[in-house]
């Protein structure tokens, strides 16, 4: 019985428990660029957009830590940060990302080789 329970535990763990205990994305929408607790300044990258490629779903950005070409996927959340103009933040698309926009990006699993988990784009209107 003990061995069977260990097997069930392993299966449960694999099926039900091995996903990352990731953060709740939904309220991230309202957190301004650079203020994500525990992430900004440590695991995210801040910079400005240099180039947007709608076809490849990539954008090129540069910041203090260098230049990056980052990949977006269907699951990447795009947040339009309008807090500086005291307007409600909203969800956006890659079309909303313009050259010169200030952005903050978080990579999946905090690995810069992976696509973006989310991107925040500062908007003045």
């Amino acid at each position: 019985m003990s061995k069977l329970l260990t097997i069930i535990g392993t299966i449960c763990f694999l099926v039900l428990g091995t996903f990352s205990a990731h953060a709740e994305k939904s309220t991230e929408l309202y957190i301004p660029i650079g203020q994500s607790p525990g992430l900004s300044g440590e695991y995210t990258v801040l910079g400005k957009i240099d180039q947007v490629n709608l076809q490849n779903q990539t954008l090129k950005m540069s910041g203090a830590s260098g230049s990056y070409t980052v990949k977006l996927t269907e699951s990447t959340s795009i947040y339009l940060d309008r807090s500086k103009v005291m307007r409600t933040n909203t969800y956006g698309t890659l079309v909303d990302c313009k050259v010169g926009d200030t952005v903050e990006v978080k990579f999946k699993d905090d690995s810069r080789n992976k696509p973006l988990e989310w991107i925040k784009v500062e908007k003045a209107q």
Partner: protein
Amino acid sequence: MKPLLVLIGGLVLIIGCHMPTPPPTPDPDGELIEKGRQIFFNETFEGNGRTCGSCHPAGNNFTIDPTFIASLPDDDPLFVAEFNPALKKNFENPRLMREFGLIVENLDGFDDLANKFTLRGVPHTLGLQDTIDSPQGPRTGWSGDGSPGDGSLQSFATGAVIQHFTKTLGRVPDVDFRLPTDEELDALEAFQFSLGRQEELTLPLPLKGTVAKRGQELFLSPTEGKCFACHSNAGANGDPAVFGPNAGNLNFNTGVEDLPDQPQDLTAELVPPDDGFGIPGDGTFNTPSVIESADSGPFFHNNSVETIEGAVAFYNGDAFNNSPAGQLLQQATGSGINLDGTQVVEVAAFLRIINTLENIRQSIEALEPVANKWHQTVEQGKRLLDQAAAETEDSIAVLSGGGLHPEAVMHLQEALRLTKKAQRSLFSKSRYAREAIEQQEKARDNLVEIS
């Protein structure tokens, strides 16, 4: 001279016999924890008037339920959706809050507030030291994904302020609320980690009550209750013998969402399905500790079961046995969980006893500084006595509710009487607190063998 010397000697002897016990070594985080306490109960973050304590009050085990909610005045910030025109729609459901203790959460996004939301009970914040860690990172909230940012308990308050403290549905920082600073988040985390028990139980306990003793056997049985597998030592972590070492806190789909006739579904209110962890959800929910359960119902993420006996009985039913977790359990053990009526009551009795033991521990912990005059301020003393009284009331209700240990109940009632005397007294607080501790210990002796 000689009588005077005898008198002085006698006085020295009396004072010597009643030298106060020296205070324990001060907690190095004490200042940070106290700062966190002040923020937790007083800071509104320039929002709608709510504080963390609005939904996590100290006097109700840091959670809310319909009985507690009914005791609040109508202008309490908890009810802000009822009197703030900007929050009248799509912020809370006042009827479901008052009737079932349910709070709105927009876990799947804020793009369709009218239809995209969940209704969840308020989880308590006790024992977090031992209940949220996992190899995949901390699991906060009912689906284990309650925090924004890095997902830590420290970041949790940021998400809570955005979801629950806003003045309008615009949720604009520095307009509708202000975000907590890093220092405030540190303090809040320290305070929350300080609440409740700081270590796990080690089962089996040498229980004295016949019914609870059998309940513990069922709880720990791999062929009958099987509860220990997900609630190791009656806590929130997976049993290492089943899930491997350091399994930590886990999520499971136990089929709660499939329960028929859930109370909130019997109303005409919109109650969208709750898909649990992630966006879109995978149907799993976080495992809570059961040590704190008997006095912190209703139960499960949606408050769908009112009593501890009902919560135990849930695992006999189709909803659990047909769930992914239930199916795996059947495949591995050859059967589902199939406790009969008496056995359900026995397991529930065990849960009532371990909850009472924890309440007694907390009561004594709160009374000792008053008994020994360790507390620094009058306000601290009042807070400690209020906590002791609340925990003792819980102990009485939990035991009486299960028809358990009437002698222990008598001791606890006496402890409560003495605690209330300490609250009212000007000069004898210490004495009454000491006597209350004695009664708590007598009650505890009734429940478990003391080694």
